[in-house]
């Protein structure tokens, strides 16, 4: 496959869109990058997955740091869930080479539809406190040493939000599953992790998205090295996508602060539905676009 300059630019634009949407809702953009590469550019799905994993790492690197600075990321919770996710990622990466592209596409579509339903049902059951003139966002952005609870200031709601984390075993199980899917499908696992944290563990949506953004990079590399070693990485495809994702993700992190959590969930759900339908067509062998 020969890539012209307009095609390389198109890859970067696709990456930017994926990065923007991913930063808004806490995913790495892989849910968008893989279908775009496969359906829009005719790339082999395993090469698309490898490129997507690289894009996920890029997105996590770009936006994860910003969210930490804003006090949204729960580092302890993210690391705890990452134990299960990295083990899952290794598992997924190892078994992916033995599974047919049709099965992978179908699995992708089913999971996106399930996630869509889950994320629309997510609410934010949190305790709110009134901000005093002596409290700043940075003072509130903290986690107790050894504990998973946290606090942050939401500029959209103009409130301090304190939350406790519940159902850790459930979150760990779902994180393992997210890791397997990461290795199989080339995603960061955020589309499982965000609902797992927000719905299952009662974490606020913005914290779930920020924490997921940080950890999906770690998840992605647990399977990326397997793909890299097996020659599925095509740098001239992966690089423009990754560069675009970084740009989109950085813009998305600033935009996310000004958007309501409900709107973020609706955007996420809409993306999942659109792409899931296309992947169903792909699995059925129906040509869409190119």
């Amino acid at each position, binding site marked *: 496959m020969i890539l012209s300059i307009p095609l390389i630019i198109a890859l970067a634009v696709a990456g930017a869109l994926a990065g923007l949407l991913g930063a808004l809702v806490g995913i790495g953009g892989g849910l968008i990058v893989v279908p775009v590469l496969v359906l829009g550019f005719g790339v082999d799905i395993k090469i698309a997955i490898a490129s997507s994993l690289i894009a996920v790492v890029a997105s996590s690197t770009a936006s994860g740091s910003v969210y930490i600075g804003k006090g949204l990321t729960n580092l302890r919770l993210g690391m705890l869930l990452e134990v299960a996710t990295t083990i899952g990622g290794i598992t997924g*990466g190892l078994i992916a080479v033995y599974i047919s592209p049709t099965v992978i596409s179908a699995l992708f579509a089913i999971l996106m539809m399930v996630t869509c339903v889950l994320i629309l049902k997510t609410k934010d059951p949190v305790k709110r406190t009134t901000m005093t003139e002596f409290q700043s966002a940075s003072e509130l952005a903290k986690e107790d040493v050894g504990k998973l609870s946290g606090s942050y200031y939401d500029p959209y709601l103009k409130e301090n939000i304190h939350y406790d984390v519940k159902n850790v075993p459930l979150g760990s199980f779902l994180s393992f599953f997210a890791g397997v899917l990461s290795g199989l499908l080339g995603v960061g696992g955020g589309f499982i992790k965000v609902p797992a944290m927000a719905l299952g563990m009662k974490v606020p949506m913005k914290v779930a998205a920020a924490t997921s953004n940080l950890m999906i990079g770690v998840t992605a*590399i647990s399977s990326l090295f397997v793909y890299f*070693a097996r020659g599925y990485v095509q*740098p*001239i495809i992966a*690089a423009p996508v990754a*560069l675009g994702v970084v740009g989109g993700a950085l813009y998305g992190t600033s935009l996310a602060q000004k958007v309501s959590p409900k709107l973020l969930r609706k955007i996420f759900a809409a993306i999942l539905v659109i792409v899931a339908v296309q992947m169903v067509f792909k699995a059925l062998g129906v040509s869409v676009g190119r």
Partner: protein
Amino acid sequence: MILMMMGLVVNMSTGYNEAVPVAMFELFDESLMLGDRLLGFGVLILSLTPAIRVITLTILWTREKDWKFVGISIVVITALIISVALGGHA
């Protein structure tokens, strides 16, 4: 990011824009085109960034004497090392 941009510029300026797969060990192969080598190393360095992040958190929690999470982050680092080893032996 810089290495990847340099690689793209080199490939586009030489007109060598063929999408070829590059396995990790091939990055050190002298026959690999300069543009692909720059792109490949850029990807490799980017891929190591999350691992560096985990190591940094381990150091931070060690300073806070949060031994529970030091242990948890060491488990994650171990899992990542295993994944690299599995990738290297693929």
